[in-house]
């Protein structure tokens, strides 16, 4: 589904990301772990063509992302708050994304009611604009919005951060469901090794922009990763 070759990104001569070869097959749930500055967000930004690669390219369903925009219809992402429109209510935002993804109101409503529990009653009909929601609630809105229109590729940057323990468990359930769907490729980055291991069937660890581990999840994976990141 996603094919990365000779990809690198430099800022003022400093290489922040360098991936010579990476293939993510369709249906995989792909976890990206690493310390701050390892290049996780840079990689996702390149995947979404928000920054320009210094060299190399990424193919998303055989579409080269920095030359064509044909990857957009089947890809959804939530990286940070700049993916939310602050002056809209949650409902308006969902319908807006729905409109862009050719979903009618009923489709969106169906999805929202499915995830009502996830919102915990704090988001829909809350009489608040998104800019006035707490960080955690913003994140919930952003994550659910990526599910609108059944995208084939879903990219979530740090989805577990800022969420309360109950919501983290609910989110894990959602991600696992998506992971089980052979038509959905999901990419998740996190600092939390345990969460990532639990929901992903493949883990890649980045360090200073390089891939240092690439493992299929097994019962030993968490231990292996913890040893790797141990001080």
């Amino acid at each position: 589904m996603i094919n990365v070759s000779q990809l690198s990104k430099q800022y003022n001569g400093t290489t922040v990301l360098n991936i010579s070869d990476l293939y993510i097959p369709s249906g995989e749930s792909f976890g990206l772990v690493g310390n701050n500055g390892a290049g996780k967000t840079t990689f996702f930004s390149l995947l979404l063509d928000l920054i320009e690669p210094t060299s190399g390219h990424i193919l998303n369903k055989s579409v080269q992302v920095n030359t064509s925009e044909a990857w957009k219809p089947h890809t959804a992402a939530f990286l940070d708050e700049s993916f939310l429109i602050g002056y809209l209510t949650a409902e308006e935002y969902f319908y807006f994304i729905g409109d862009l993804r050719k979903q009618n109101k009923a489709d969106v409503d169906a999805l929202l009611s499915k995830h009502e529990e996830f919102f915990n009653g704090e988001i829909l009909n809350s009489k608040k604009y998104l800019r006035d929601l707490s960080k955690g609630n913003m994140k919930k809105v952003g994550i659910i919005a990526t599910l609108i229109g059944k995208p084939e590729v879903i990219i979530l940057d740090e989805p577990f951060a800022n969420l309360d323990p109950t919501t983290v468990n609910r989110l894990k359930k959602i991600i696992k469901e998506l992971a089980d769907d052979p038509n959905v490729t999901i990419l998740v980055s996190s600092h939390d090794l345990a969460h990532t291991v639990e929901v992903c069937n493949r883990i890649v660890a980045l360090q200073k922009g390089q891939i240092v581990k690439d493992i299929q999840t097994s019962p030993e994976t968490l231990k292996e990763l913890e040893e790797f990141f141990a001080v």
Partner: protein
Amino acid sequence: MFKHFFMLETKAFFRSSALGANLAIKIILGIVATFYAFMFCMLGFAMYPILKEQGLNPLEVVNKYLIFYMVFDLTIRYFMQKMPVMNIKPLLILNVKRNTVVHFAIGKSVISFFNAIHLFWLIPFTVALLINGHSPINVLMWHFSIAAILLADNFINLLINNKDAVFYPVVGIVLAAALCWYYDWYDVTVYTQMVFSAFYETPIGVIFALVFLALLYWFVFKYYRNRLYLDTGLAKKNDIAKTENFGWLDQFGEMGVFLKNDIRLLKRNKRSRTTVVMSVIFIFYGLLFYTNAIEQYRAPMWQVFAGIFVSGGFLFTFGQFVPSWDSSYYPLMMSQNIKYKDYLASKWWLMVIATVISTILASFYLVFGWKIYMLIVVGAIYNIGVNSHLVLLGGAFVKTPIDLTSGKQAFGNKQAFNVRTLLITVPKLLVPMLLYALGFYTYSAELGFILVAGAGLAGFAFRNKMFTVIERIYRTEKYKTIAAYKGT
């Protein structure tokens, strides 16, 4: 302690993105500030001899109108002066006394262009009074009293900031008083003049002025000190949100999706609401020209100039910042399946609708004759046909993020000095002016109308071509734009 604060402030100043961005802007702002200071200075010196020549007592005249000056000053401050408290959050939990923090924040507001500017006329005027043989003690005490009262404006502004319920009634009362004065119904200045003159006649009165100032400072201090909590004085105001679906816009298809959002954008953000207010003010801009109030503005070229602005206020103030309006969520827009053409078309229609509404609202210009209104109508046609595309083109080069929640940015915005945007301004205004002049002088005003309107209609033909060009700019500048918008 103040040493640390001072260091923080100088760093905040020199490292602010506005200052670091562009040397040209710094120079232009510097020139503007110097210009105003110079003009006020000249005013201070010239006031005395000019009023004297008219057979008036300069000091009395100044005292008479000082009340209007003060309220005008307060109005300017209300809209433009920034409040000093927002960046003190990080200091709250540090080992700094809260009183010190508040004193510093209030003290900081004293060092401001808005306070200094008054001295530029007050000092020369005082000097003029002294030279012309007024009693030094009386003049100096009057000087200090007035300076104290003008500084008090600064503290009053701190107290009433963001309290529209206080501000608008005060301004309303003073406006009413000004009207009464103008029509000779009731002269309030007789009484205010007495107050201000008293500071001259009884020099000891300066004590009252200083006590007044001190009391105000104390009030402001108490006010901020008691509200130095995250959920009171430092709290962000939350609006009560209501979901609006604008279902009737669905008939516009893809474009309607964006149109809905743009209407919400205009309604719900301070910064964009300012544009709507500005465009209403622009409607009345023509009065300067068409009432023949100013001699030079009677030339036909200037009349078209006004015609363009009357209907184009929204078009200019909104259009030149497309796509910056969407800067805070630009990464979303760039990763969604969005056709630039629909996006642009939505903004374009918004400008067209606003131009048409402005033109209809401006129909009161018919009282100046149909030719005057005709100027506005052909101006509107030119705006829709040509200028709407040009502002979008200019906006494509603007890469300054807009903070939607702050209204104060609307004035003195540095984007106004973008060179490429400035270049695009030429055809926006100069071309219709020249076209009209051409028709007017070679044949008649009617030919001028036809030429300007014709150019506008011709502009329509290039709409799609223009959209394609803008789209290409959006594409080539994409990464730079995203990076620039991130810089907030």
